[in-house]
């Protein structure tokens, strides 16, 4: 794959029209007006029938999960989609997710983060790990974006060490659990209807905190003892509401423990959290591509238009160097995204190290390109009207969330050194 297929281009062109008509004029309102992005995301889902596609896929997955449960087999996710243990290609479906991400990120990466966390992480975790009943109860409305999801793992004292350093606890009570702890930097935290919450098992034993099983729970907005903070003020990504969660003696029944009782109680939450790494990192690369494409396009137009000493600055070699480096980054990131799509179509996935390398490079490239776009435009670039300053602030988070650059390096190195 060296270019988007005709069908993918049709999707891209339709989404671009939508984004330019419905989202671009509202970016200021979304970024600075404290307007949550959820109605815009729902409109995107409805407009392109993404809600119906998700509903259809949900019903198929649910029927398979029910069949597996009825047969008495473990509902352990196979990841194959057909429940027969054989991994098949996705027929290019990954592109249908990634193309809108690229297009949205030309204007508003925050929307993608809000959408990706709800659909990819919250709904994704429930659909992979939940029982059929749990899928029906929470997954059905999450996959269509009728409800908003959050995925709560990070804590004030554990970001990169989220699983080991986790302090949130789930104390067994005989007929359920009592949850306590604080989570922070939680995307959609302030508005989420459904929260996937990770906590360490407290079964009264003296097992050291680091070694305790991690359990995954599903919480609903408004539960007694659950407080969702107001959105944080951030450097960028203002269109994605981020906040804290405070849990104080939140009582939950076993029905909220994600997965079948046996698996869940064994602490498969660690794997549940790791399941998301590859998809999340590939998604960040697509986000980076959108930022890079837009910055490059705005920079080329500006360079041709902006006159200095009687000629366009595009004639200056220092400007040409910036444009050329942006193009190199665009080509590389696009190729990485294409590789991911091709692999999914072939029924294969990037290894964790490959996904980490892809994310590391793309995040750094997007930040550098966006900052260089600001530099190329000088004083204008520093002004909000020229749009690249927002993308530069937004891009910086690509190096921090979904695993910092430094964590990506360790994942790549661990793989290399294990050979």
């Amino acid at each position, binding site marked *: 794959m060296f270019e988007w297929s*005709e*069908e993918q281009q*049709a999707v891209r062109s*339709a989404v671009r*029209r939508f984004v330019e008509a419905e989202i671009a004029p509202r970016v200021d309102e979304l970024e600075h007006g404290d307007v949550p992005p959820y109605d815009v995301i729902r409109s995107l889902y409805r*407009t*392109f*029938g993404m809600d*119906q*596609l998700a509903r259809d896929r949900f019903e198929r997955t649910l029927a398979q999960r029910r069949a597996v449960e009825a047969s008495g087999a473990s509902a352990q996710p196979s990841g194959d989609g057909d429940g027969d243990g054989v991994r098949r290609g996705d027929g290019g479906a990954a592109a249908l997710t990634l193309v809108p991400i690229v297009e949205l990120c030309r204007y508003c990466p925050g929307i993608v983060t809000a959408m990706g966390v709800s659909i990819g992480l919250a709904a994704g975790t429930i659909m992979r790990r939940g029982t059929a009943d749990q899928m029906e109860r929470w997954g059905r409305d999450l996959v269509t974006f009728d409800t908003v999801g959050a995925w709560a793992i990070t804590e004030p004292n554990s970001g990169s060490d989220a699983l080991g350093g986790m302090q949130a606890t789930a104390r067994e009570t005989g007929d359920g659990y009592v949850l306590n702890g604080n989570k922070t930097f939680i995307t959609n935290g302030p508005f989420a209807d459904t929260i996937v919450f990770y906590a360490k098992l407290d079964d009264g034993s003296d097992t050291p905190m680091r070694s305790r099983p991690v359990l995954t729970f599903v919480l609903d907005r408004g539960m007694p003892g659950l407080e969702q903070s107001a959105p944080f003020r951030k450097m960028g990504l203002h269109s994605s509401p981020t906040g804290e969660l405070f849990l104080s003696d939140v009582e939950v029944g076993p029905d909220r423990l994600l997965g079948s009782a046996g698996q869940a109680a064994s602490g498969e939450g660690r794997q549940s959290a790791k399941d998301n790494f590859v998809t999340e990192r590939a998604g960040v690369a697509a986000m980076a591509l959108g930022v890079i494409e837009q910055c490059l396009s705005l920079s080329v137009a500006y360079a041709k238009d902006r006159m200095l000493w009687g000629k366009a600055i595009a004639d200056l070699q220092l400007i040409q160097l910036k444009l050329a480096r942006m193009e190199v980054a665009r080509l590389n990131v696009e190729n990485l995204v294409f590789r991911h799509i091709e692999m999914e179509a072939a029924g294969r996935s990037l290894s964790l190290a490959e996904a980490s390398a892809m994310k590391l490079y793309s995040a750094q490239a997007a930040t550098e390109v966006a900052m260089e776009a600001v530099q190329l435009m000088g004083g204008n670039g520093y002004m909000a009207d020229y749009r690249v300053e927002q993308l530069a602030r937004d891009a910086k988070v690509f190096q921090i969330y979904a695993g910092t650059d430094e964590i990506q390096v360790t994942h790549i190195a661990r793989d290399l050194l294990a050979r």
Partner: protein
Amino acid sequence: MSGAPIGRWGPLSGTIAPMNVVVCVKQIPDPAAPAALDAQSHTLVREGKLILDDSDAYGVEMGLQLAAEDGEVTLVSMAPNGEVSGLRTGLAMGAAKAILVSDGALKGSDALSTAKVLAKAIERAQPDLVIAATESTDGYTGTTPVQIAELLGMPSVTFAKKISVANGSVRVERQTEAGYDEVECPLPCVVTVTAGVVEPRYPSFKGIMAAKSKPVDQLTVADLGLDASSVGWAGAGQEITGVAAAEERGAGELVVDEGDAHERIVAFLEQLKLV
């Protein structure tokens, strides 16, 4: 012909039979890309990838709404090199099928030749209603739809800003400079629609995926039973003898307010007979 105004309409009644709607669509060079004229023929270079003319998206949407679930929309287009990209957009929106006439002999066709070709293609679909844009975004003659109507022996209503169908007739609010006329016309007929008639839908992802497997009937001039000498350069009743750059707009007059700016602006508007 344009129907006469019939006054205020009564309520719609009666069952609407499934509608077979043909929408004429043009595939044009992307207006966002720089356009080029052929040095020899002075016609628009149309060799690359073409897209659905934006002004036709309104007709497709109107057709889909009128055809509803029981009816069907067929797209009819004439384009070089078997180009179907623009048709796929209309099919993704929901049209059931398309007829494309593509033939080297059509190069240089004027509006009337185009109308002859499209009319022959439309006949094959046996439509209850033919919808077209008021004019294309690359040619702007605005004459093809009424020529099609004449060739098909159908009445035509132009500049529709609202359309409804009942009891074998089409009712149209026809845009005028002063407002609109209410016009009723028997089916089958040709109606041209303005950009305000409806808001075109975005194609759904499912629609885009389904579009590639929808039928596109590709025809040549001979398939339509037309004589090649009646179309293209051979049949054109017009010739482009030259092309000149449009006159550059003159510099405007800057009114600096020294207390009398309002008087000078009023005087200027009076001179233009605007006040």
